[in-house]
């Protein structure tokens, strides 16, 4: 089953001489459980694509289907509900609420979706445990390291058991150790069957995915399968003299 389907999707800004084709007619199917990375230089349209797929922006052409439901034409209320319940977002700069503890940040989406305070607490405890931060639950974000903050943000994205997690440069503000923390977490999520779409210009993030799409000037220029190989680093390390 495809969690996400995109058909001839376009987002254009401006007119005539100033026309910018941020996304210029792309097709994409993301099967359930796939970890997909979209990679390209800044300005290639990858963030716009992510926003269109998550209902944060409306396309100027084409269609977006989320689990068989068309979302590009959905009304504002339906779209807001969908963003709360069906999609989990992870951003480069974490976007945690600084006044709330790690646990409260994770509880928030459950409460906003109509869950009881008790259910929210239970869910937050479970998720923080899953991302390895049970011992940080009562900390405010500024007391956490970058990697920890992003893991809290991932826990929050998972709060309402979304159909898909959409991550925009999730390691953009992280050093290499913290990048590994977050990539380890994504690998765990993939192992549990979570569908993930990441846009990035970080080769290490892209290389962690099952599938990699390269984007340039609003179009896909390459679609590569990276997952499922068992080969050991034969080419990695030349042992010659």
């Amino acid at each position, binding site marked *: 089953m495809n969690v996400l389907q995109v058909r001839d999707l376009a987002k254009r800004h401006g007119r005539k001489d100033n026309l910018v084709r941020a996304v210029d007619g792309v097709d994409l199917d993301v099967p359930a459980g796939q970890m997909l990375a979209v990679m390209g230089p800044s300005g290639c*349209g990858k963030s716009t694509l992510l926003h269109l797929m998550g209902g944060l922006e409306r396309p100027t052409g084409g269609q977006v289907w989320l689990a068989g439901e068309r979302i590009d034409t959905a009304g504002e209320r339906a779209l807001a509900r969908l963003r709360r319940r069906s999609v989990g977002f992870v951003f480069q700069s974490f976007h945690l609420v600084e006044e709330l503890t790690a646990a409260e940040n994770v509880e928030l989406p459950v409460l906003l979706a109509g869950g009881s305070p008790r259910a929210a607490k239970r869910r937050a405890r479970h998720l923080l445990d899953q991302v390895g931060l049970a011992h940080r639950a009562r900390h405010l974000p500024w007391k956490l390291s970058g990697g920890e903050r992003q893991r809290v943000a991932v826990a929050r994205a998972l709060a309402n058991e979304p159909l898909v997690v959409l991550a925009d440069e999730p390691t953009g503000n992280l050093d290499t150790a913290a990048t590994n923390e977050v990539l380890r977490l994504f690998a765990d999520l993939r192992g549990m069957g979570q569908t993930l779409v990441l846009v990035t210009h970080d080769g*290490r993030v892209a290389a*962690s995915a099952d599938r990699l799409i390269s984007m340039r000037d609003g179009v896909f220029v390459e679609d590569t399968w990276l997952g499922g190989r068992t080969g050991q680093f034969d080419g990695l390390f030349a042992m*010659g003299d």
Partner: protein
Amino acid sequence: MQDAILAMLAKEPSHGYDLGLRLRRALGPLGGSMNAGQVYVTLARLEKAGLVVHERSEESPARPDRKVYALTDAGHERVAAWLAEVNRPKPDLVEFHLKLAAASASRLADPVELVDAQRRELLRRLAEAQRAVLAEPEGSTGGLLLEGIALRLQADLRWLEACERVWSGAGKESGNE
């Protein structure tokens, strides 16, 4: 590899088999890609070059692999020089750079396509390295080597982005994202 083997012999004279084990241990998960014969071939070369000598071991003459290798004075000097030397980046960047220039000048190949092919290969290797990094427990020394490899590949990928920008003729940093 020659230098690594010499450095291991600097600690104490050893059998080829033991050297192979120690090398594999030092390499962590990468040790699997090393074949046992390489150690013996390397030792033979080092002996020819006068950097090591061997003698027959007396402990267990029944076993076939009974040559014990030791460093010569020249071998000791080479180890010291190797350890003191600063590692230079491998020259493959230079070669690839010249390849792009030659492809463009001769019109025998499109430099941007060469960049694409190179990127595919780097990403393939990076995917393998990254997967291996994540499979290692945090803080293991074997993982540290893999992480270094992953970071280098990442740096090469970033350089390819710059190559693509220049060779595709126009800077495309319009920032319309």
